[in-house]
């Protein structure tokens, strides 16, 4: 939750994408996508299902290989095939829609796995930091429980702790409230808000428009794999320039989600 790594120089973007193209089979999922994420800012990706939000995040983390274009993390081109992908992923935390906790491990083991195995932190040290983070996210009593004993909201908060435990430079949140019951959404969004206050750089794909408007410094509207509109939350939500953005937002309002 602190922002470690001192490699940034001034306001150089943490993440930069240029002309990123990604296809699955014959269908183009991302087309000419440009994106810049400044340090300590929150970028919200909005758009209908299938618009490419999740794919964009997966490309940023190198879980998907892009077809064309380039991606930089802290000024280093990570799409260069000579780059050590594992080393890149170590600097990026990801939280998934379906939590993806490891069901055969306790909460504590889920959180300490990467610090211990990847970063070579001693067990005692890793567990101390894990317990501290769990405590801070209201999960103090759950360290020794297995994931299937937790509610969806608790599982998702554990997933956030797991991503934070390696002190990532950048946090990618992929529709992290989409699988939650409505009454559990708030507790997870609260955590994201806290992280923003602590200066964590984040990119989140979300359907929670109210939350995106609230928390995002930059909003990108994706449509058919293209960033159709981008700007501050006020611009995109208050005065959208594109007809498609307007139509999308109108549907959201009609559905009572904004």
């Amino acid at each position, binding site marked *: 939750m602190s922002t470690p790594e001192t490699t940034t120089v001034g306001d150089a973007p943490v993440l930069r994408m240029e002309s990123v193209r990604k296809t699955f089979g014959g269908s183009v999922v991302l087309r000419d996508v440009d994106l810049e994420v400044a340090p300590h800012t929150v970028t919200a990706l909005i758009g209908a299902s299938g618009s490419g939000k999740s794919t964009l995040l997966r490309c940023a983390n190198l879980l998907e290989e892009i077809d064309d274009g380039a991606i930089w993390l802290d000024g280093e081109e990570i799409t260069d095939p000579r780059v050590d992908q*594992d*080393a890149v*992923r170590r600097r990026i*935390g990801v939280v998934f829609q379906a939590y993806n906790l*490891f069901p055969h491990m306790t909460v504590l083991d889920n959180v300490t796995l*990467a610090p211990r*195995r990847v970063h070579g932190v001693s067990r005692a040290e890793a567990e101390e930091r894990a317990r501290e983070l769990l405590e801070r996210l209201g999960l103090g009593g759950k360290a020794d429980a297995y994931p*299937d004993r937790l509610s969806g909201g608790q599982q998702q908060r554990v997933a956030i702790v797991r991503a934070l435990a*390696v002190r990532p430079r950048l946090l990618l949140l992929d529709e992290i409230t989409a699988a939650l019951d409505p009454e559990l959404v708030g507790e997870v969004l609260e955590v994201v808000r806290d992280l923003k206050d602590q200066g964590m750089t984040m990119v989140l794909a979300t359907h929670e428009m109210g939350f995106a408007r609230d928390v995002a410094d930059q909003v990108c509207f994706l449509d058919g794999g293209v960033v159709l509109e981008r700007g501050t939350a006020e611009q995109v939500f208050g005065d959208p320039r594109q007809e498609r953005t307007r139509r999308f937002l109108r549907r959201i309002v009609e559905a009572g989600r904004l």
Partner: protein
Amino acid sequence: MTVTKDESAREGADGEGDMAGGADDGYVPSERRLARERYRRARARRATALASLSTLVTAAVLYLVVVNAPGWPRTKETFFSAHYAREAFWKVLEGLWLNVRLLLICGAAVLVLGMLIAVARTLRGPVFFPLRVLAAAYTDFFRGLPLIINLMIVVLGVPALRLQGVTVDPVVLGGTALTLTYSAYVAEVFRAGIESVHPSQRAAARSLGLTSRQALRHVVLPQAVRRQVPPLLNDLVSLQKDTGLVSIGGAVDAVRAADIIVGRSLNYTPYIVAGLVFVALTIPMTRFTDWVTARMDRRQAQGGSL
């Protein structure tokens, strides 16, 4: 096996019912519930009575059919002679010790080798291409090759080569043949387990910065092995009885011990004894497998969302 599962499920349901009744909230079962339970009990009693009756009738019919068969007196003498049964029993038990040792050693070897082959088959990357092909060819070949032919080739063929320094001990060779065949089966069981772990688990592990190998070791394999315990135990039960086949090379196991007596006396009772001893040996293992499976099913039912 299904019967056991059904029964245990019913027991579980009853237990929960009692627990709810024991909750400390002043709950008094309604007349409706009591009536329902009375009816269910009566129905269960009727079912038990019916089952006992039909079992008795079936047994009686079978007995009469067998005993009245024209060849029964002669069959009884050659297959169910008390005298030869007593003589064979201790010999067979002595031989069985060899089967048990073979099971333990081959079982361990099979698990290790099977795991290595399964992992080899799932390795990605061009460097591992030959390894992948080799592992695939291995499983294809040894799963298709009848065990008895495999045993004959190894147990009889290897000594015929008269290689220097290579053992001709039928036990070692027989064990090797068993391990070769069963490793192929077990490798497929492990591979199915590895592939059953959802790709999102690997994605989560990789996104934390774990290398491909670390993701396999800490995230994928533990889940794969846990899920495959029932089929693995099933293969071990099967291996246990197939250890009897090493007798074709002349190793004196339970089957061969029986064989020796049969050859001398021309009475087949020792085979029956050996067969029953094997069955007796596999039953605990089978029950254990059922128990583990039922336990895992229950846990999965509780687990709900992965």
